[in-house]
């Protein structure tokens, strides 16, 4: 392969992302921009990838990482501009908390705890949730004062809610995975009620944050879900429980073709593709067992972020990376709309050297001109 020409790569990459990656640009798009968790292995620094860290250390780590990235791949990849601590708004309650769970850290990883242990408890939970004053529940007592202070001092508005843990993953956390699967099989009416409560809550929570931010669904469109566990359902079960949530939320927040309709599920999703196809998704990131030709058959207009195995990348396995990126380049040139990236989240250990290698493969084998 020819040596990598970094300046040319990034110039071509910019054009490659036009029209949601559906274009005839000279070069295929690269979707990998690494992630904050990669700083530890890359810099040989102690630390755990999934715990929040103090702002100054975050900036220092990201700056050092970016210095290295600039040398190796010609671009500063990670954010270095984090707002000061007092620019942060007090935390707003999240969807798992509405359903009775708590977000806890265990072994440096965030988990949503189980809140119901029987169908009876689920019914009681749904009774509460369906009648909940979500605005009062979500926003802390000092919200108004803090919102005003942060806006007047820093010009920062509250964040919108346009991305949530998907319905199946949420339900698995709230009930426990097996009990949830039994629920959908044994008590479909109660499962349907649970699904409808998730629709109601999602739309209401998003609306509260729209109001707090000062926008509406019509003004600021697009929505995305991260639903790793949806692969655990059969198509019929997903049709009953998961699909209605996405359909209703997209109908409000992504009614028009260009509005983002995105699903991330880094898991084996092949059996659910026909259903997801009916949602007209325009962006997906699935696990490495489902590849471009299969996805494209069901989702003709979706930008496919994939399909490099995150584990090949994390192991920095050059043979596997070469084989998989070559495959994805071939598929992308044939099918279009493929953003060369990992099929799932990028892990600490994935190196900048490997990213450079991926860029080299794309520049050599992922070109139209």
């Amino acid at each position, binding site marked *: 392969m020819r040596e990598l020409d970094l300046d040319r790569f990034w110039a071509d990459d910019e054009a490659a992302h036009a029209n949601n990656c559906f274009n005839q640009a000279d070069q295929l798009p690269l979707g990998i921009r690494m992630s904050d968790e990669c700083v530890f292995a890359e810099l040989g620094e102690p630390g*755990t*990838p*999934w715990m929040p860290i103090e702002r100054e250390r975050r900036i220092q780590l990201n700056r050092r990482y970016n210095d290295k990235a600039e040398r190796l791949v010609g671009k500063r990849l990670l954010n270095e501009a984090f707002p000061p601590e007092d620019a942060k708004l007090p935390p707003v309650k999240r969807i798992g908390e509405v359903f009775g769970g708590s977000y806890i850290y*265990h*072994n*440096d*990883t965030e*988990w949503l705890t189980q809140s119901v242990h029987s169908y009876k408890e689920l019914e009681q939970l749904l009774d509460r949730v369906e009648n909940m004053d979500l605005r009062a529940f979500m926003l802390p007592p000092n919200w108004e004062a803090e919102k005003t202070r942060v806006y007047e001092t820093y010009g920062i508005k509250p964040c919108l809610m346009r991305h949530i843990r998907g319905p199946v993953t949420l339900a*698995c956390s709230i009930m426990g*995975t*097996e009990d949830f*699967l*039994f629920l*959908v*099989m044994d008590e479909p009416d109660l499962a349907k009620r649970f699904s409808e409560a998730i629709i109601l809550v999602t739309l209401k929570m998003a609306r509260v944050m729209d109001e707090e931010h000062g926008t509406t669904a019509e003004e600021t469109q697009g929505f995305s879900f991260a639903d790793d566990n949806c692969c*655990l*359902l*059969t198509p019929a*079960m997903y049709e009953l429980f998961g699909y209605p949530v996405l359909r209703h939320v997209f109908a409000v927040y992504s009614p028009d073709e260009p509005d983002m309709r995105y699903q991330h599920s880094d898991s084996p999703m*092949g*059996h659910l593709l026909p259903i997801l196809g009916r949602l007209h998704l325009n962006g997906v990131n699935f696990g490495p067992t489902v590849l471009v030709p299969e996805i494209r058959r069901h989702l003709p207009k979706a930008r496919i972020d994939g399909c490099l195995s995150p*584990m090949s990348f*994390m*192991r920095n396995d050059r043979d596997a990376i070469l084989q998989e990126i070559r495959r994805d380049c071939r598929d992308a040139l044939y099918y279009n709309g493929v953003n060369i990236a990992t099929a799932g989240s990028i*892990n*600490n*250990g994935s190196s900048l050297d490997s990213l450079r290698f991926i860029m080299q493969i794309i520049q050599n084998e992922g070109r139209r001109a």
Partner: protein
Amino acid sequence: MGILSDISSNLQAGKAKAVQELVAKALEEGTPVKDILEKGLLHGMGIIGEKFKNNEVFVPEVLIAARAMNRGMELLKPHFAESGVQSRGKVCIGTVKGDLHDIGKNLVKMMLEGKGFEVLDLGTDVAPETFIEAAQEQDCRIICLSALLTTTMSAMQEVVKAAEAAGIRDRVKIMIGGAPVTEEFRVQIGADAYAADAASAADMALELVEGLL
């Protein structure tokens, strides 16, 4: 053969109540316990396992089949001793320290039970010493380790080391699995077997105890 194939087919369909009734009827009719177990329950679970491996059925179908098998087993187990039915050995299984995921581990447990193993489920977030103590106290032939996170898979090596330190490595096999785990990782940490999915794990466990691996 009629009632045994009925047990198998109802189990495959996840019909727990029907399986329970059929097992009770088979016992009443004097069908040998070993036949009810092997030609009815384990036969049905074996078919489900194969279908799962071939992506013909999904996790929920395995769950309800396993639930049906357990209902049948509840009736059958009290007759094992008098009938001379023996399990294929004890296995202890758990998700490693720091990791709270359980569905993968539970699927492997179901598949192992479907192959006739007696499975001791240690749960999630299991410390290395807990695996070793359980294996020693319960005379387990295999320790099965599950991890879903890249940050917790390293805990598998701690279990291998703890088994070596406890001097049980020659009589206890260690099998690993989970999304981030690979055959290469197995070699690196010195475990005995790596399984890519739950059904393969059960097949591999059989090969391990039969000395084929």
